[in-house]
């Protein structure tokens, strides 16, 4: 019987999770009457698919070199005077080539979310906060992780945040992350 003041414990799961493991089977039965085959249940097998890609950051590479040297790099179009916080070598406004510039390391939360689930690769890191960062004098935004606040309610749009860098670079955009500035 449920009592008041009972210790709150997580509920036992009500269903089994689908697993990608199973038993190795080398044969299945086949009925003698071929007319019954259309009613046969489907045979489902596991089919692994693993690939290592050789991925080049290409023209975006200087950004990652910047991160490993604790600098946040964007690009600026000399013609449009437009600064991209997430760098791109081609200005989509005029079609011209942009130049690399250093961005400020403090900005504000333009918007945010807290992910409680995610793609399989990031599932073990949940929950985590994503933010789009805005910087003074920069025309576009930058996607990053926000560390520090415990709950989404602790994050406010417009709040000041500052960049932090991993000591050992992974050459990933997560080499930089943000924390509350004050």
């Amino acid at each position, binding site marked *: 019987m449920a009592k008041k003041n009972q210790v709150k414990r997580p509920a036992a799961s009500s269903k089994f999770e*689908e697993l*990608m493991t199973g038993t190795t089977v080398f044969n299945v039965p086949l009925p003698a009457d071929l007319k019954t085959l259309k009613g046969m*249940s*489907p045979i*489902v097998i596991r*089919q692994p*698919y693993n690939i290592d890609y050789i*991925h080049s*950051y290409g023209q*975006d590479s200087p950004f990652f070199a910047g991160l490993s040297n604790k600098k946040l790099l964007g690009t600026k179009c000399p013609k449009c005077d437009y600064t*991209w*916080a*997430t760098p*791109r070598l081609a200005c*989509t406004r005029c079609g011209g080539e942009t130049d690399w510039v250093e961005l400020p390391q403090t900005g504000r939360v*333009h*918007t*945010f*979310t*807290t*992910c*409680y*689930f*995610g*793609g*399989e*690769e*990031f*599932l073990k*890191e949940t929950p*985590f906060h*994503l*933010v*789009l960062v805005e910087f003074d004098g920069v*025309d*576009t*935004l*930058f*996607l*990053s*992780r926000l560390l520090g606040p415990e709950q*989404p309610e602790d994050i406010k*749009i417009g709040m000041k945040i500052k960049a932090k860098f991993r000591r050992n670079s992974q050459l*990933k*955009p*997560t080499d930089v992350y943000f924390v509350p500035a004050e």
Partner: protein
Amino acid sequence: MRPVYMVSGGVSKFAKARPDATFQKIVKESFDYAMNDVPKLKHSMIDGSVVSYFSDHFTRQLMAGIMAVDYLGLCPKPNKRIEGGGATGGLCFQAGWEAVASGRMNVCAAFGFETMSHVPTWKGNEFIALASDVNFDYPVGGFYSGYYAMMVNRHMHEFGTTVEQLAMVSVKNHMNAYGNPYAQKRRKLTIADVRNSAMVAYPLTLLDICVMSDGAATCILADEETAFKLTDHPVKITGVGTGTDMMRMSDRPHGEVLLAPNEKKSDYGNLKYPGVHSFRAGRSAGLQAYRMAGITDPLKQIDFVELHDAYTSSEIQTYEDLALCKYGDGGKFVEAGYPFMPQIDYGMKLPKKGTLPVNPSGGLIACGHPVGATGLMQAVFAFWQIQGSIKKHYGSPELQLKKANRGLIHSHAGTGTYVTVSIMERGW
């Protein structure tokens, strides 16, 4: 360009998993349904086809398109595969329209599918997240629900939209689907149910987000002369529009609103547009389709809408993109009751009866979202509404709208990168 009509459609019942069939057979179910619905259409009259599916990762089969085509017996006639993320099905529908409008084909079959059950849900979410920049966005924690959640948090900040308004969309669409036998999820919900379900990406809960599905859909399109030979009730496609936007949300401009015919610059003061709160591609696609169809006041001139509600938030944002209400008024639009069906009891008090039902079929949230089929599914459901044949196809007239002379279908890809809008009208 010549007028194009839809003469028939078919949908496989969308399901979480269809281990009983490969994708070819699921496509054939929808194709056969469409063929059987117009007995005068002989297989030999089909001049060619277009086929759509989103992800080779889900299928683990390259060139799955041609395998569907050969299964249907449409070789050696022309075909091509169409792909554009979540808007894949909508783009395929328009590719079929192009084939007939150009005169290349008199009859074109447009079909699409997705079989997403081949991987577990979170692996599927990883595949979908690969539809974001793999240099800058995916590695930060790529998750589409997270991207849309960031967009709606900004929408709430700009315009005061509430989570209860989002939840109303979920209640509405799930309830509509209750009368749709093709829908994957048919549930009677309350606003509290939506808010109390598991938080996925703040503030979006499990019931604010569509699920993954296995399914297929087929539309048969024809020129005017052939259409009227085949059926007394063809549906004319009177407008098409396709918009695009930059993949990285961070790159979206903060400029001026693309104004609809029923709006003026002074409506928007200092609003920075589209930012990350609105879908510029949706507005662009809508304006193109409205111009072509001669629509200047969409709220009054359209009878119903089937739109891409992969998230409850995107339905609210899309009301605005389609100029059914002004930018910022999407939350109030649903709260006032406009997009509800007048004949359905939603178990909540609404200030007014629905005047412009949105997602009478149940939308993606309740019907499911087998990506390559979704935009075509919307066309089929809209086609049946306009024909007045809902009873025949759903087995019950409950979801048949009294006035369904002109409908709008809307298909949308990754954070608004591709959006298609097509206008369909009673052709007889």
